[in-house]
């Protein structure tokens, strides 16, 4: 039987990789994918918890997270498209009209 902590560490590592990606990439889409990565990390830990706790809530939450993730994806990509129409770039650095 695999100790729970392994799953925990795994999810943590993935989560942090997501953070890393978000912090260091300049392509909006990839930044957004990093966020998805973080969500997945959370999912891993949640499912693990619910398995070890023998409780369903975790998986329910995962279900909802996936739903929301889908929604977020839709909106996020819509925003990106709208942005792209006005300014043909997916580079965050070039999208800094407002500052100060």
């Amino acid at each position, binding site marked *: 039987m695999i100790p729970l902590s392994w799953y*925990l560490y795994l*999810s943590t590592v993935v*989560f942090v990789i*997501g953070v890393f990606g*978000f912090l260091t990439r300049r392509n*909006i889409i990839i*930044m*957004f994918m990093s*966020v998805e990565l*973080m*969500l997945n*990390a*959370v999912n891993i*830990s*949640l499912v693990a*918890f619910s398995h070890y*706790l023998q*409780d369903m*809530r*975790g998986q*329910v*939450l995962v279900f*909802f*997270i996936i739903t*929301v993730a889908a*929604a*977020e994806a839709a*909106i*996020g990509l819509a*925003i*990106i498209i*709208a*942005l792209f*129409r*006005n*300014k043909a770039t997916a580079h965050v650095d070039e*999208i*800094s*009209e*407002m*500052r*100060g």
Partner: protein
Amino acid sequence: MPEFVMPDLGPVMPEIVMTCLALALLLADLFIKRKETVAFLGIIFIGIVSYTLVGATGTTFGGMFVSDGYSMFFKLIFILNVLLTILISVKYIAVERVNFGEYYSLILFATLGMMIMASAGDLIVLYLGLELMALSTYILAGFIRYDIKSNEAAMKYFLLGAFASAFLLYGISMIYGLTGTTDLKAIAFFIVNNGLAENPVVTLSMILFAVAFSFKIAAVPFHMWAPDAYEGAPTSVTAFMSVGPKAAGFAVLGRVFMTAFASVQIDWAAVLTPIAILTMGVGNIVALSQTNIKRMLAYSSIAHAGYALLGIIAGTSDGMASVLNYMLIYAFMNIGAFAVIIMLRSEGFKGDTLSDFEGLAKTHPLASALMLVFMFSLTGIPPTAGFMGKFYVFMSAINAGYMWLVIVAVIFSAISAYFYLRVVMLMYMKEPKEEVKLTTSPAVGLALAITLAAVIIIGILPS
């Protein structure tokens, strides 16, 4: 395993009604051509909702939904917020040429999300409510599709928001793993009974919650999205965002930290205190050097979040009450100020830079008089509501023994006087550059009347 029994829908009635009406509005939009009518319908619907609000108290869905005085008050704030926002939007979105019916239903959905947050008794519900609100607000922020600034605002808000909610989820999962539940009361109960208060994982998840909520209330250093989002978003939406999500954030912050994390109060006070100081400091100080009034008000709203945090930090019921009070007052004075700004926006004239206010008192004495009142209220000069709000918050904070924190706060609020007064100065003590014409409408007038009355009356008779 017990069979399913239909839960009591009484407490949740306002939300249900809100949902139905929002959908109805969505449909109505298809048939109604004049969007003003849609707005009007929306106002009526809100009236209905606020009617159902009365007496809809209790706990249902197995403790997932708690409708008590606390949530009730916040819902009141949200209702007012959305009402005033719709009022100031009617003309404005027409001017911005984004006069779509979806706008209103989205606002309603966002409000619905806030209402759910306010009375969430379970982390899952909390999360979903938060996302409902957030997603709607992202869309609203980017509502002016052809405007790059609007897109950018939406984009920044969206990405950072998703980032923040990821942290929230991580926190939720931690606390879930620890306690095996997501119900706030149960969590609190469990932590106390199993003496987990000292456990770093609790602290960790508490921190993650704090971060996520700080993002929603735009507290430093998680405020970075706010100025850009506020500047880029349509002004009416800015008004909406600067009050609604902030209040909702405070609602969940108070709810979670007062119930679930009540036992680690020392810890989260220690986390929030520096955040509060930074928030007040950065908000007020950076606002000094702004040239765009929307951006300036963004920073000011950051600062106000800082003041309100004092009430949370106090950690007493008195403190929470003061925060509610503050949020209500803030809603009035801030939306009032935005209403004036919106009037300046007209075809081919953005009217959102400070210099557009020069000599306004000569051309539009009434508007500038109103702005004067709101500015002094935001500064916190009696006899305006702003003073009463601050006063109550400070009082509860001192009462909880945070005197030094309050001294810091008052110093910052004195500094804040400078940039609020600068608006007044520009209006009254400068000569008008070019003729500014106001786009007024009965709706905006009504909004201004309400806010003004509220600011003055609360200022004189807070009870």
